[in-house]
């Protein structure tokens, strides 16, 4: 894992509290699972019909009837349950999932999120992302702050088609952590060694700085 991803993942795991039911998106969010404190009772949900995802199976014990939403072979933890897809999204849409940690292509200052398509390229589909961002009690987005061209992914408005309107509760990047409130976007933390000026220079969106801004610990 790159340093940037390690930093983001280690910060993201602090969003998880003991007793929560959590959905982790495909890609970088999946890595958060490895960092959850072992004394926490946290159940991870998989959209395809499992509450209680366990670690990857040991070689030879993989089961084609037991996969996660990324189609990877997995195991279950004690106390896990299986259900159908309608039930799975009843949990999600019905507000029974405490926290969703998802990746993104763009986040806008009003909390809009874009993470499902790039026009002109192949459209793969939104999968469960639109339901998750609408239904989970809290939606935390983790992503790199700028794209490979150095352009801010934290925008005034999303340039890509959105996944949900005003759905982001908190954004964690390799530079900073922001909250989305009634009054707009607020910088609440900077990553180790990152100045407010650097965050400002690499962020297209407007934001305020929290009075009690903290620098994240290494």
């Amino acid at each position, binding site marked *: 894992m790159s340093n940037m991803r390690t930093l983001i993942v280690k910060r993201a795991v602090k969003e998880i509290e003991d007793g929560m039911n959590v959905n982790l998106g495909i890609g970088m969010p999946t890595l958060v699972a490895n960092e959850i404190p072992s004394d926490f009772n946290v159940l991870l949900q998989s959209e395809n019909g*499992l509450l209680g995802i366990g670690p990857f*199976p040991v070689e030879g014990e993989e089961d*084609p009837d037991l996969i996660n939403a990324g189609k*990877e072979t997995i195991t279950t933890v004690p106390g896990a349950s299986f259900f159908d*897809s309608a039930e799975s999204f009843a949990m999600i849409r019905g507000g029974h999932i405490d926290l969703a940690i998802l990746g993104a292509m763009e986040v806008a200052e009003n909390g809009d999120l874009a993470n499902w398509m790039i026009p002109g390229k192949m459209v793969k589909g*939104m*999968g469960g992302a*639109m339901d998750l961002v609408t239904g989970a009690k809290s939606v935390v987005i983790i992503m790199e702050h700028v794209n490979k061209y150095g352009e801010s992914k934290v925008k005034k408005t999303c340039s890509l088609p959105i996944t949900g309107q005003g759905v982001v509760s908190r954004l964690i990047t390799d530079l900073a952590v922001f909250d989305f409130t009634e009054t707009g976007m607020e910088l609440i933390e900077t990553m180790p060694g990152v100045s407010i000026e650097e965050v400002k220079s690499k962020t297209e969106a407007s934001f305020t700085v929290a009075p009690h801004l903290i620098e994240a610990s290494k």
Partner: protein
Amino acid sequence: MSKVYKSFVEAVSDIEDGNTLIVGGFGLSGIPEKSIEALREQGTKELTVVSNNCGVDDGGLGILLANKQIKKMISSYVGENKIFEQQYLSGELEVELTPQGTLAERIRAGGAGIPGFYTATGVGTPIAEGKETKDFNGKTYLLEEGIVGDFALVKAWKADTLGNLVYRKTARNFNPLAAMAGKITIAEVEEIVEAGELDPNEIHTPGIYVQRVLQGTNYEKRIERLTVAKA
């Protein structure tokens, strides 16, 4: 009349060109492999297929795509399939992308006799275009319509001779919903037992939804992404 069929060829023989099929499975897990193969052999065309995914290039529903039997797909995620991309970009294949939870509920609703329902999913996004909205308690919701299929193709673990079904682990996924929403539901399973041998407490799909049940053999159950713990 027995629901138990011996031949997949016979079970799919009345699926006609232009029919709508609701097909269970998530990725390649819990897909009705044998019914899909029989349908490819039969060559039925112009199908509208409702399924969360469309298989891979050489597996699952992908084999019907490759054989140009599908006219339209209603799915939530189709990113595993190059033939899909080619046919979509060339205009041969029509695609209706539907959020996964909305798709599941549309199928469930169809099977439950509910023609439409409201959900907040997708409000303000491209999928809301052209859809009716309604506010409840100050929040906006989209009207989404239930889906009913001419046929449903489902895969379960076990069945009894009355078509009661039990699924295994996450291979359940969309299958119980698909089973409800087919005018004729064809369920393929790994084992058929006599009525009374399944515990009524543990049946996932009551046989009332299932018109035809078949036992398949040599299930491939391909794993899409093998991931194992590091030793």
